[in-house]
């Protein structure tokens, strides 16, 4: 087989996929060592989400892309340049956690500088808040788009359909890339028992929304599908619905043990096989990358343990913007 992407890009993607995987494994370890109360994350979605993160028009305000993400989006954030240690801070709920100051579970990002709106645990509500930034981006000449992702089971919530309705209104089509990462299951419930029809993407048809199903375990298929979808949304200022089949490599969350689940396709393994075969990267090089990340992140996790916990008297801070302390 031959890659279409150039070597540099492939190496970059691989690096970020490893970084992202190592981070998740570190977070799981932290959980198991009682340095965190709960783990949930994105191992198994790297082949799709790293290419996504790299293609985001990153920045703040309407001319950049807004991201309404769910709780498996670490590869997106790392590809955008987030620091692994910050994820560990959130895992350990330290006061230094830049995403929530120790208030929220891990993998609940929030970064205003990059238009990453606060991740909420509530399944599918991100498809509704996405409507708002996308409406804002219908402003004339605006270059940014709105990107939203979520799981397959969550599309049973009416909110997913609401987004289809709002995105495709003839009087105001929205520049919105709607992503569904379909891992075939929601916690313990298989997708195939719960959904009639062939694909989730096909729901776009009745609304005239362009849509497509892809293998999200394949880096290049993901890259180019995203490129096409993002270009379409950015230029046509119309919605696109992209369903990516992905894996869930460590089960749902720490509630189900957070152990590696054999039998699922591992996109990183597959990608490394191909890189090796194509002579882009050697096994040893790849091992080394992983080793290095392992070492740094282990150090970082130790560092995080030394950082302060938020204090109880801060609970009222920021109920309102700029407000601190009890206000009533």
């Amino acid at each position: 087989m031959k890659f279409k992407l150039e070597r540099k890009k492939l190496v970059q993607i691989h690096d970020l996929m490893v970084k992202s995987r190592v981070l998740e494994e570190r977070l799981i370890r932290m959980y198991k060592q009682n340095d965190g109360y709960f783990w949930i994350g994105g191992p198994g979605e790297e082949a799709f989400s790293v290419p996504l993160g790299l293609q985001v028009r990153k920045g703040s305000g309407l001319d950049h892309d807004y991201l309404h993400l769910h709780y498996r989006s670490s590869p997106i954030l790392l590809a955008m340049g987030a620091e692994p240690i910050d994820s560990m801070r959130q895992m350990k709920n330290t006061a230094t956690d830049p995403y929530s100051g120790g208030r929220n579970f891990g993998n609940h990002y929030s970064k205003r500088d990059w238009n990453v709106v606060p991740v909420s645990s509530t399944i599918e509500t991100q498809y509704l808040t996405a409507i708002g930034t996308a409406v804002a981006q219908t402003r004339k000449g605006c270059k940014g788009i709105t990107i939203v992702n979520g799981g397959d089971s969550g599309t049973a919530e009416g909110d997913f359909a609401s987004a289809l309705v709002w995105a495709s209104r003839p009087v105001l089509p929205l520049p919105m890339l709607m992503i569904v990462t379909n891992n075939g299951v929601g916690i313990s419930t298989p997708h195939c028992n719960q959904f009639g029809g062939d694909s989730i993407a096909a729901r776009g048809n009745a609304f005239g929304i362009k849509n497509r199903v892809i293998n999200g375990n394949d880096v290049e298929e993901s890259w180019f599908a995203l490129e096409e979808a993002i270009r379409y949304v950015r230029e046509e200022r119309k919605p696109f619905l992209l369903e990516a089949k992905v894996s869930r490599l460590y089960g749902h969350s720490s509630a189900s043990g957070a152990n590696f689940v054999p039998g699922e396709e591992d996109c990183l393994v597959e990608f490394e096989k191909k890189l090796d075969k194509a002579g882009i990267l050697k096994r040893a090089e790849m091992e080394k990358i992983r080793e290095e990340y392992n070492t740094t992140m282990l150090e970082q996790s130790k560092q995080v343990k030394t950082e302060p916990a938020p204090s109880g008297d801060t609970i009222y801070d920021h109920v309102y913007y700029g407000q601190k302390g009890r206000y009533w």
Partner: protein
Amino acid sequence: MANMAQAIRMALHYGEKNLGLEHVFGEDVGPPLGGVFTCTQGLTTTWNSPLDERGIVGAAIGLGFANVRSVAEIQFCDYIYNTIDLLKLGGMSTWASNGDWPSPFTIMTPVGAGIRGSIYHSHSFDAMMTHIPGFKIVMPSNPLDAYGLMLACLKDQNPTMYLKPKALLRVEGEEAIPGEPPLTAEGKKQLKEMIDAPLGDRSKWKPKWPELQDYTVPIGEGKIVREGSQVTVVTYGRHVLIARDVADQLRQEGISVEVIDMRTLWPYDWKMISASIQKTKRVIFVNEDTEVTNFGEHLLRRTIEEHFYSLHARPRLLAGAHVPGIGLADNLESASVPQMADIANACREIVQEKP
């Protein structure tokens, strides 16, 4: 002489012109109707949303993230109950991001009974809404406050909930909105011709807006509507008018009633309420939401916390009966929400009560 619907419309117009208001939307909010209560007629940024309250509130939150000013309407608060999770979400974004994201957006929705609206056009929303942290919540009782509170919402960096007492939307003001035509019959007619959409074809109609001025009612400030010395009645929305009438009536019986219009439900003007209670030693909280787990119970609890040992009589709550809805028939509605006579009687009773 603007009525409250006109006042809200003018405030939104002021917002479009001066405060960067960019989207006013909701079910039937745009042309041709301009809202089921005409509150959004003639504006330039209005549009009709799909019939989907969850989408509406979600869109409002998202617009807030984008820092694009919006006012979203829920057609009746009776239809807001499928969005409570979203209101919680909207009220939490700044806090959950530890202060990173401001979240400016306004939701407005008509509330309350008094128009024979039956089960689904009579709900109150103050109880549930005050239980949801993160919003500032206002509710005007007259056109001038309606104008000033809307401007306050549009200037705020936080989610704001603007409750419109639907029974008052046609009631005219006694105080002038800065810039509106004179408060005369002539001025009233003039305003109507300027900003009320005509019957029939409206496709070519454009309003002529008066030269409106900035006027803000600061969020968090109540208003003493009647001064009195023997008992404090604390209320908001349409019951302000009823309580005021009660005060005027009881004055003739020699009973002196102080009436406080809270105007802001959250965060509320405890200083004003507390000072009044300290003065009168007797307090009645009035609202029309159902009485169990009711916002008036919160106010009463706080009263007990701070004034238990100095009260001269048992503090009271007058609120709606704990029933699933307001029945349509006159007798049913009257028996379900506090009436003028109920408030008057409670005042008479409490001033006579001796510990």
